[in-house]
């Protein structure tokens, strides 16, 4: 088979969907530990299940974003993808993923939170990213008048590479010897990495809106560029809001606080354009991939509201270290990133399928099961977090284990809602994977 027959974007998207299915499975198993503490304790335990879940979920987002950029580039770049480079990039990812999963199963760690694998496996990922940068550069260099989503993709690609490298500064004892600076850099990295893949995904959302609406206005208006630069500014400087309670330099915390408050502009923009958004929803609601963009918009509103409030230090001190933070992380990962990725997956993997035919009742039911499960999932974590926050600040604390026991009812809702998410996402993934072989090979 000739390499040029392979649809590179879809190859990455299918790989990403497989990662999602794995991530959901590991996540569900890990969630059971909250109810049954000794569940799989000696086989895998939380120390393996958590990284297995988190890494799979992150690879779903990163590989999905990669697939979206490749698929999007086909529509805007005048140079075609270098297939050899793209396939080499994919193979490097597969090598890294296999190595990382085997090491997690064997309880071999060595990395940091969210990147718990031995740093050796970061090498194929970094190399794959360099290949991605080369492919992106050669495809876009001659494009004139970039729409905003191309700037967003470029930003995501460059900043992911920079922060991913920065993520391994701890290998040098110089950075590790002072815990506060070390943790400052660790959370600088975590904040900016999320910002980097958000740029790639929000860029994809802009691209899809241009494509679905058939207009080129979305990606080229001044407001879109203003919002992009505000997003970039936040990616670079707002991460200090993660570490208000870390005794790091004052200026880092103040910069994080002040920059985070500029996110009110995004919030105001959402409210200001609410009516127009409702009109757009009504216009495109029948189109199945669009439903996910609509859902992402609503979850942006909810999560951004929460994020801005959590970025105010006097509120943050109540929520920091509690499940409110988990609710926010899950809310954005599932509610925003995953919704955009599903819009892209249905658009790119099953093109035109829903252009003229309404999605089946079954498919709509799954969509709503997903949204309702996510709402309960998010609420249960928030309530558990608020209860933990009250415990953290109470003068007479009961023991940690007693406090955790008192959160059991919320964890039950969390697990049941997680099961709902698992069922809905699995059904959607099966729908996408059924088409896998057709969508990877160009006819």
């Amino acid at each position: 088979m000739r390499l040029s027959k392979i649809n590179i974007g879809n190859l990455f998207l299918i790989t990403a969907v497989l990662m999602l299915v794995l991530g959901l499975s590991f996540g569900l198993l890990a969630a059971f530990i909250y109810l049954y503490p000794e569940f799989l304790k000696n086989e895998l335990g939380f120390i393996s299940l958590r990284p297995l879940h988190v890494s799979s979920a992150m690879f779903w987002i990163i590989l999905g974003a990669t697939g979206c950029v490749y698929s999007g580039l086909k529509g805007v770049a005048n140079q075609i993808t270098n297939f050899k480079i793209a396939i080499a990039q994919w193979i490097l990812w597969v090598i890294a993923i296999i190595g990382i999963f085997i090491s997690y199963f064997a309880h071999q760690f060595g990395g940091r939170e969210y990147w718990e694998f031995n740093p050796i496996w970061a090498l194929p990922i970094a190399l794959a990213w360099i290949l991605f940068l080369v492919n992106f550069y050669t495809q876009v260099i001659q494009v004139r008048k970039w729409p905003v989503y191309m700037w967003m993709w470029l930003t995501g690609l460059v900043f992911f590479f920079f922060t991913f490298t920065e993520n391994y500064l701890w290998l040098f004892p110089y950075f590790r010897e002072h815990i506060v600076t070390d943790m400052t850099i660790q959370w600088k990295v975590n904040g900016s990495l999320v910002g980097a893949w958000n740029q790639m995904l929000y860029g994809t959302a802009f691209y899809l809106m241009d494509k679905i609406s058939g207009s080129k206005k979305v990606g080229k208006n001044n407001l879109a560029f203003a919002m992009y630069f505000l997003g970039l500014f936040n990616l670079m400087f707002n991460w200090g809001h993660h570490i208000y309670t870390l005794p790091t330099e004052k200026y880092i915390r103040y910069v994080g606080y002040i920059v985070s408050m500029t996110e009110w502009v995004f919030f105001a923009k959402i409210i200001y354009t609410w009516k127009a958004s409702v009109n757009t929803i009504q216009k495109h609601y029948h189109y199945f991939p669009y439903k996910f963009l609509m859902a992402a918009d609503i979850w942006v509103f909810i999560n951004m509201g929460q994020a801005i409030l959590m970025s105010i230090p006097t509120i943050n001190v109540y929520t920091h270290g509690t499940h409110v933070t988990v609710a926010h992380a899950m809310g954005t990962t599932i509610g925003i990133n995953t919704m955009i990725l599903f819009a892209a997956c249905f658009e790119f993997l099953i093109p035109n399928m829903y252009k003229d035919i309404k999605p089946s009742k079954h498919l709509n039911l799954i969509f709503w099961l997903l949204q309702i499960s996510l709402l309960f999932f998010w609420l249960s974590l928030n309530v558990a977090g608020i209860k933990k926050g009250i415990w953290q600040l109470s003068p007479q604390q009961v023991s940690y284990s007693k406090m955790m026991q008192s959160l059991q009812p919320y964890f039950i809702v969390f697990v049941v809602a997680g099961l709902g998410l698992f069922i809905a996402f699995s059904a959607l993934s099966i729908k996408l994977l059924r088409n896998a072989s057709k969508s990877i090979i160009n006819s």
Partner: protein
Amino acid sequence: MKLKARHTFFILSTLFLLYSFSIYLKPLTINDTRYDKVTAANGRLVWQKYNCQSCHQLFGLGGYLGPDLTNMMSQNGKGETLLRAMVKTGTKQMPTFNLSENELHELMEFLKSADVSGKADPRAFKKTNFGMIENYEVK
């Protein structure tokens, strides 16, 4: 639009790099003698090797299954003896870890470095200007 976007991107990226390097250079100005920095730096690797961060937090950052360990070293009724025992015997949820004596020593030094760096207890913070918080018990 393209030219303006390019300039803005360049200016912001330069500011970001300057900000990043100002943070990278911080350790040059710090000389804390309350712990052995080489041992503590190795202890950080032990913390990662056994994936302690999966369940435990430092300064409220990390996992949510177990308690925050930032100031466990200096807490009444806890301290190094208890921490050592917990690592060796495990708990209902926590498996038993077979750390060598050297690894255990390095891990304890790392936790000591966390403990002397500041207080993680949210009750130790007070409100200051513009909604910012300060830890009034930082050592």
